[in-house]
């Protein structure tokens, strides 16, 4: 463990750039914290916070300090970069009597800056889903992950319930805990891989002392104690399976817009649509995969019609997949407790509240 100063953080950014990584991290755009390319630590949303999130509501606020990671998660997750919203799976051109495939491009080498514990867990969930997907695996192998431990929690966060955070527990190259008080501004850095350890060795900074480690522990404990939401997982999968005909599904459907926002923002949702496109002259074609949603009618269209035509059936599919069937399919919950589906649902439908209401009824 090492203690980095602000200069040390900048040195980390420079070292990653020097190794040929494109840095992707949180930044301020259109009154939200989104992900995008950046080069310097000063481009982070310094002094901003987004912790006042609620169902269907997101507003930024200024912090009293100059914390560089003093916020939680925005509308976007790292899914954008590992499982992009739209991806050309292959391109083909007519040649002679047959066709030739364009060679696949090498994956971009990206360093993800500020990956929170819930999103590390989400990446691990998607690693299992896309285990046979060469494009995903290549992008994943090329990524360098700089995690950040949360020292505050957001209004819709419940990683503690999902046992995924607020502290990063593996799956990163480096993990930082920001200590931002009147007395000091430092980052306690821990390596989680050989590549991370080598990089950390080369950065300027002292070994973290007992006081640093205690301060980091306390800060993370503060986040853990202030979760905005909670979800009781004990027996939840069984309870949901036993309530497939519960009237509450219809009550949610009356509020649900079937807009699909929840599935788009969820860092574990993986449904996609595959479409073939050809040029007008028919000389070239491409196969494109794009994010799909279980809230779309076409998603459950099979010969003879749609099997989930009611809004209630679609919401039930989503919630029971996340919290019950995902366990059977992948051995983990489909929910990491990031809270995005709650915040970014335009009408504030809350997975924790709906699950609790179903269980109680």
């Amino acid at each position, binding site marked *: 463990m090492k203690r980095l100063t602000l200069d040390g953080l900048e040195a980390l950014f420079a070292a990653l750039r020097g190794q040929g990584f494109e840095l992707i991290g949180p930044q301020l755009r259109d009154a939200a914290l989104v992900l995008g390319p950046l080069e310097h630590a000063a481009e982070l949303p310094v002094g901003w916070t987004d912790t006042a999130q609620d169902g269907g509501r997101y507003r930024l606020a200024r912090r009293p300090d100059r914390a560089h990671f003093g916020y939680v998660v925005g509308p976007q997750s790292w899914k954008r970069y590992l499982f992009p919203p739209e991806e050309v799976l292959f391109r083909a051109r007519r040649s002679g009597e047959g066709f030739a495939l364009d060679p696949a491009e090498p994956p971009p080498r990206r360093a993800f800056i500020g990956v929170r514990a819930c999103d590390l867990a989400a990446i691990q969930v998607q690693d299992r889903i896309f285990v046979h997907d060469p494009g995903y695996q290549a992008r994943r192998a090329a990524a360098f992950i700089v995690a950040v431990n949360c020292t505050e929690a957001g209004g819709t966060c419940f990683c503690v319930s999902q046992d995924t955070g607020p502290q990063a527990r593996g799956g990163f190259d480096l993990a930082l805990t920001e200590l931002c008080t009147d007395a000091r501004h430092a980052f306690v850095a821990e390596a989680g891989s050989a590549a991370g350890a080598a990089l950390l060795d080369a950065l300027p900074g002292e070994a973290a002392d007992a006081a640093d480690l205690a301060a980091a522990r306390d800060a993370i404990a503060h986040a853990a104690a202030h979760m905005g939401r909670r979800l009781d997982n004990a027996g939840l999968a069984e309870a949901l399976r036993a309530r497939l005909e519960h009237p509450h599904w219809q009550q949610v459907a009356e509020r649900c817009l*079937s807009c*699909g926002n929840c599935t788009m*923002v969820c860092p574990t949702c993986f449904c996609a649509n595959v479409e073939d496109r050809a040029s007008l002259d028919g000389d070239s074609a491409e196969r494109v995969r794009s*994010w799909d949603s279980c809230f779309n009618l076409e998603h459950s269209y099979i010969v003879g019609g749609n099997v989930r035509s009611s809004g209630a059936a679609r919401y039930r599919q989503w919630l029971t997949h996340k919290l019950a069937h995902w366990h059977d399919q992948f051995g983990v919950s489909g929910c990491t407790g990031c809270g995005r589906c709650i915040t*970014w649902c335009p009408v504030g439908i809350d997975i924790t509240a709906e699950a609790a209401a179903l269980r109680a009824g």
Partner: protein
Amino acid sequence: MNTRSARNAQAPRRPRLAVWKFASCDGCQLSLLDCEDELLAVAEAVELAYFPEATSTVLPGPYDISLVEGSITTPHDRERIQQVRRQSKRLVTIGACATSGGIQALRNGRDVTEFARIVYARPEYIDTLATSTPIAAHVRVDHELRGCPIDKGQLLATLAALLHGRRPPLPSHSVCEACKRAGHVCVMVAHGTPCLGPVTQTGCGALCPGCARGCYGCFGPKETPNTAALSAHLAALGMDDAARRRLYQTFNAGAEAFRKAGDA
């Protein structure tokens, strides 16, 4: 000889495309002319058999693909659309006028004779129907391109799909999904700006939210639109009934879901 001319030599003729206009502003037809980079490819792929905006050539039907712009507002057009349908293998309506009756459908249910009297110096010259109705209210429509105006990417993708015997890629889900795929920040959640995206059909690429504006619903209602839930939320954001009616009842005032949501 390259492969393309070899194929053209074998092909007896290119599919014939016709573009028809009913009550409309021409904006959607212009989307075809606006396909600058692709216009040559279009002209190579099809024979422009009837397209008065672009060429004085008039080739006789039948036509392989007819693009129909505009709504039905006169007795004459009511007859003419039947002829167009009879001559067309595939009929694709383009734009809000053709697919829902357009902004001129605001007159539906109101006194058109009175409107004509106020607007025109010689109202007796006006021969118009009491309603503006979509093409599908009169003839069978094979595919619908929504929007005011249509999206030229959707138009080209539809032409390409029809030429290659595929179903055109015209999803009917929400604008929100396109908004999220594009990485826009939700204006409703982050800014409190009213937005019709959750009940509007995708296809525009979430243009307005991409400019930090709420969606105006120009692509009309999506599949299973829950306008009641959205209206309740718009009221919670502070929108009164009159403003809500104006929001829903614009380009697609004649689309049932939006008409009802505005009147509710």
